[in-house]
């Protein structure tokens, strides 16, 4: 089959099953976005352009050998750290200072850290003997914790959590000992009250609302209730594309960004939701498979942790839309409207493709 394709696409560096499923997700996402935006072609085109840019980045990164990527990693990480710090000082955004305006493009530097942190941890662990010892463990924790703390201060709890988790996944996949993992988990649970103390008031409100949305159905509970109504009223087969009343009559908040899954659930029903989950599951599984056949430690850890992080996106976003997790600003990967997130995600898949291209052919 390869001979029917252009040379670069046929190159062994691109994993066609993964790329195909990603394209299916993105195209489906654009269709949902068209409905969620109230049939606004402009929005869809803008998003398509961003996805196109993301795909270019993907292809570009897939051509880079893993060792080159590994050598860049400290620079990317440092740059990201500086930008996150700069955002803290200069940024602008809706209530939270997440955005950095570079005149040409406005973007969220914290998104870079979603890639840079697992890469940095992996790059650090790459020459080390695994599973990591106490010293390596502490250095890794520092690598992931410093940017996470910066991002928490922005404040953007959701992104900070994802950044931290992606680093943790790297450690987990590197073979961190179970007793350490269990110990950390216990410490995390114990630290929850402390987390409550550092939270901003609006974040606490979100948690309160999450615990009891009906207490304020027209205020903070509105998002959760309307989202659940949209999902529930979708039923098994959904109301049909462009026919979701909750979405078209603007009852669903943030319907083309964080709550786009509610639109999909309403219009395509449980069938649509299960199909989407299946596609994501395939992506995650395929990513882990790519990681397991990667030639070097760096590629293996980065590809593995990015795959697992993708799942966390879906879980947190899907849980929020279904009213089982609090409202945190986590987009639905490749479907939610937004440039930085899409490009970052596709860049991550580019790194996976690079690992695939340099995989071991022989066990």
């Amino acid at each position: 089959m390869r001979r029917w394709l252009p040379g670069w696409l046929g190159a062994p560096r691109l994993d066609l099953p993964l790329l195909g499923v990603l394209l299916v997700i993105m195209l489906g996402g654009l269709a949902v976005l068209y409905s969620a935006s109230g049939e606004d072609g402009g929005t869809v085109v803008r998003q398509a352009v961003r996805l196109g840019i993301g795909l270019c980045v993907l292809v570009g990164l897939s051509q880079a050998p893993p060792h080159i990527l590994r050598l860049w990693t400290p620079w990317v990480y440092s740059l990201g750290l500086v930008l996150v710090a700069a955002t803290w000082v200069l940024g602008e955004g809706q209530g939270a200072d997440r955005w950095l305006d570079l005149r040409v493009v406005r973007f969220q530097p914290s998104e870079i850290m979603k890639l840079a942190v697992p890469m940095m941890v992996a790059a650090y662990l790459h020459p080390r003997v695994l599973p990591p010892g106490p010293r390596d463990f502490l250095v890794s924790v520092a690598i992931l914790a410093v940017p996470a703390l910066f991002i928490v201060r922005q404040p953007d709890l959701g992104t900070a959590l994802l950044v931290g988790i992606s680093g943790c996944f790297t450690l987990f996949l590197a073979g961190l000992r179970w007793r350490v993992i269990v110990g950390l988990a216990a410490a995390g649970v114990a630290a929850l009250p402390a987390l409550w103390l550092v939270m901003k008031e609006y974040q606490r409100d979100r948690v309160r609302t999450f615990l009891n949305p009906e207490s304020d159905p027209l205020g903070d509970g509105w998002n959760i209730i309307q989202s659940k109504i949209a999902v529930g009223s979708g039923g098994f087969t959904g109301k049909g594309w462009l026919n979701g009343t909750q979405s078209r009559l603007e009852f669903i908040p943030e319907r083309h960004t964080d709550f786009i899954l509610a639109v999909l659930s309403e219009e395509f029903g449980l069938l649509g939701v299960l199909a989407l989950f299946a596609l994501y599951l395939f992506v995650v599984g395929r990513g882990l498979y790519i990681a397991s056949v990667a030639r070097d430690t760096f590629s293996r850890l980065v590809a593995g942790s990015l795959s697992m992080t993708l799942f966390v996106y879906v879980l947190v976003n899907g849980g929020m839309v279904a009213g089982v997790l609090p409202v945190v600003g986590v987009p639905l990967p490749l479907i939610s409207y937004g440039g930085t997130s899409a490009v970052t995600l596709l860049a991550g898949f580019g790194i996976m493709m690079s690992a695939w291209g340099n995989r071991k052919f022989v066990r």
Partner: protein
Amino acid sequence: MRRSPVNKPLKDSLQEQDGFRHRAVIGFTVIVALFGLLAVRYAWLQLWQHEDFTTRSESNRVQVRPVPPNRGVIYDRRGRLLAGNRPAFRLEIIPEKSGDLDETLARLGEIVTLTDEDLERFEKTRRRYRDFHSVPLRLDLDEGEVSRFAVNRHRFEGVAVVPYLSRHYPYGELLTHVVGYVGRLDERDLRQVDRDNYRATTHIGKLGVERQYERLLHGDSGVERVETNARGRSQRVLQREDPVDGADLVLSIDVDVQQAAWDALGDHAGSVVAIDPRDGSVIAMVSKPAFDPNAFVNGIPQADYQAILEQPRRPLINRSLNGGYEPGSTLKPFVGLAGLELDVVQPEQKIFSSGRYFLPNYDRPYRDWRKGGHGSVEIRRALEESVNTYFYQVAYDLGIDRMHDYLAQFGFGAPTGVDLPGESSGLLPSRDWKRGRFNEPWYPGETVIAGIGQGFNVVTPLQLANAQAALISRGVMRKPRVVFAVKGPLDESAHRETAPETPGVRVVNPEHWDLVLEGMRRVVNAPRGTARNVSLEADYVIAGKTGTAQVFTQDQSVDYEQDELDESLRNHALFIAFAPFEAPRISVAVVVDHGGAGSTVAAPIARATLDAWLGQERLMGYRP
């Protein structure tokens, strides 16, 4: 042990890969499990709770809105508009969407006039509804206010200018006491109507025909099922059940006659009621002074209302229905008829008037109005000259209870049953009444003065006009009717209201009735008649009776010159009249507050009213 304690361990690529695969499998298993849980959650919402959420989604989507019917309009007998609907604009606020309400109101106050009453009423209305309900703040905005708001609209989320139909009364105060007015619907009104039907209604009839015929005028409210977005803006109408507009009413009032009577009253306070004796329809019903009903439609400022309340001549009182007057000599035709019909006096029997009348064993004189008396008079002359002594004697011979029972047949002492709210019943005294009211026995002297319409007697102008109508139609009693016809919105053919007949007056001998009516003809037409001035240059024959109502009880032994009295102590002037004598087509009662003598003040007003009606009839091609 995988690494030796001595040597620095070496990286083992294969072993690492195995370890990784082990962890990846664990991770993927957990991920599949969590995906499963999430899928179960979606299935729970979308399958098990589907019906519940579908209902909630539908109630989100569809709002049921009541649609107010258009209020029926009111015409006079000749089709002139008395109460209509004028396009106007009002300001409405949805409190939930307007943000800080106090601040919004303050800013609105810079653009439109908002009185304290507006704010107070808004506050009251607001509490009746949920926060997403649109609540009216100011009615009847003027053009300047509408355009100023249009320019500033973007500054006011949740505030809107809404077109509506505002009631207006082109004739103003001329017809206030008949047509009445509508005012803003309040909680008290809502208790008396079907709330569902008034959900979209802002005004309700408060007085007069507007109140009496509220049910017909209002109509039935409709319902609209509207698809509405999250901000409450309607997207499209899904289903509509049209309201049934209120019925139009045609009143029997003739504006020309009403105006003539109004003008004839001049600066006097008083009342004129004119009834067509042939069908009981009310032709004119004037109460003066009155007030402009238009001021009440959109809420009258407290200060203006206070000013109306404090006017000494009390414009809020409808004198035609609620003015309680002593009938005075206007009661004499009825007392005389009672004497003849009940056989206490014979048609040609004469009674001698010396100027003073004494009861047996009493030395208190009861006087005639002419010193020295009128000589011997029978019934016709007694009416013509209004001879008190004749009626003193008849009343005394009848006794108070027989007189009461007979006069009650003419509707005295009870509401006439006119189709207007709040009518007074007046007072027709009897032994039982006095015992019940004062726990006192009846004195013979009280019977005597009751015979000339004094003492306890109280009548309303409407009662007088209606009793006279019964007199001239030989005992046929009708409930007076203001509404002549009802025109349903679908039924173009007007359905005519006929005045129901009530048990009439039993006729013993029609000749007795002829005698009394002849006496009334002489009042106006005979040389000694008390109202000769009325018939001047009339091309039809008028009959009537003058009357004077005492404002304060005079000592019968002393003469007062009415002109010398302070106006507020002067007698009320009364006159009842009908015409043409041969085939009466109008029965008029005139009362002029503190007018003095009935003949000089009240009679010309009656004449003007008769002229207006009979002249109209000629214009309209009625037979002469």
